[in-house]
């Protein structure tokens, strides 16, 4: 099989197809959708990285634990406790992911970036619990696609593929949101709260290990923050613009070789 065909199959066709099937079969049953989508992404993830190490060795090996902890949050009854739990799990995962960099090259800049990411995560989780987000699947699909393209262009095809798989898993919901003229969504807050930490963690991995440029990272972080803080019906356009700028910056800073 051609390597490019394999990449498309692993990170787009397989997760998108299976997620579409799940969406068709699960209907409005949220718990099936959450667990089913997580499982689909985990299968794609295991296929892409050739199975994660246990105990986790590299940054990407922590991602499955993040998703499992995200699902577990559903069963913590008290709302305030849930928010604290989500933030604590997210902060712990980001620290674990960043630990090798903090260990070998500790710097105030890296610590500051991580603090900004954790605070942004906390704000996002808190707002998603409180408000009914507009077109959450479309926004997250745009963000994950933007990250996938930026990563693939700037250095790490692996992180790009993992992000593309995330976009593909949510993509079916985004298409339904577009067909529904952005008035209703089948993508629940619970799904957002499980997949958003994953997106933020992939962004952290891309920044720390694949040297995603800082301005690109800021733009990719600003997209979901804007959409959640300004729940306007067409805030996805702003997310799209941020992503276009982020990718444009990567393109401007890279040479002309498309492949090697």
């Amino acid at each position, binding site marked *: 099989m051609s390597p490019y065909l394999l990449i498309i199959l692993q990170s787009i066709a397989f997760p998108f197809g299976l997620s579409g099937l799940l969406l068709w079969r699960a209907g409005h049953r949220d718990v099936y959708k959450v667990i089913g989508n997580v499982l689909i992404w985990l299968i794609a993830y295991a296929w892409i990285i050739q199975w994660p190490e246990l105990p986790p060795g*590299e940054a990407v090996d922590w991602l499955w634990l993040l998703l499992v902890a995200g699902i577990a949050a559903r069963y913590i009854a008290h709302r305030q406790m849930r928010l604290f739990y989500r933030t604590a799990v997210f902060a712990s995962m980001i620290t674990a992911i960043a630990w090798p960099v903090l260990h070998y090259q500790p710097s105030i800049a890296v610590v500051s970036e991580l603090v900004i990411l954790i605070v942004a995560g906390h704000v996002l989780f808190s707002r998603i619990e409180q408000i009914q987000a507009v077109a959450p699947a479309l926004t997250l699909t745009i963000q994950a696609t933007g990250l996938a393209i930026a990563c693939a262009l700037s250095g*790490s095809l*692996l992180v790009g593929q993992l992000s593309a798989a995330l976009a593909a898993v949510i993509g079916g919901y985004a298409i339904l949101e577009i067909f529904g003229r952005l008035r209703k969504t089948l993508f629940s807050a619970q799904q957002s709260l499980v997949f958003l930490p994953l997106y933020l963690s992939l962004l952290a991995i891309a920044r720390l290990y694949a040297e995603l440029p800082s301005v690109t990272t800021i733009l990719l972080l600003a997209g979901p923050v804007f959409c959640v803080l300004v729940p306007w019906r067409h805030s996805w356009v702003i997310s799209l613009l941020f992503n276009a700028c982020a990718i444009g910056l990567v393109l401007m800073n890279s040479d002309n070789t498309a492949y*090697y």
Partner: protein
Amino acid sequence: MPFHSKESVLKYFTLATLLGLSHPSFAEVATPGSYRIDPGHSTVFFSISHLGTSEMTGRFNDIEGSFVLDKEQPAKLDVSIKTASIDTNHEKRDAHLRSPDFFNVKQYPVMQFSADKVSYDKQGQPVTLHGKLSLHGKTRPVSFVITPVGAGKDPWGGYRVGFNASTTLKRSEFGMNFMPGGIGEEVTVTLNIEAMKE
């Protein structure tokens, strides 16, 4: 450079003769002792199949280490290579190779080879190095086949020894599984070492 006069011809001839006289001998067996690797004259090359159609080569530019060359003493060789110094003559590919897809240089900045066993031939030349290679968070036993190149005094009064060592690794054994179809599983690694006696 063109020669313009009789004096310059004589000058170049004298210099060439002096360098020739102090050039390390190719047949000489290296004298026992402790050696430090000369990073300016040592290189680590690797070669790997690309799409099953060609062999792509690259190198690591930052190498350091030392070894003891003595049949009467326990073998000892330590080589450290900075993984971020990978160079395949293509900036974008080098960035990709440094990323988590392959070497993950932020997490694993150094690869290390430590040998604790050397076998010698009848002339006393080292033939095989047995040791452990730590790469990408994994440590695996590795044996290098050695080809002695030369040994002798250098023009600055020191003593140098040079050898090439090569082996074949499986990248999956070191946790580098990404892109199994496009990039080969086996990697040929060659160390071209020049070392100065301490």
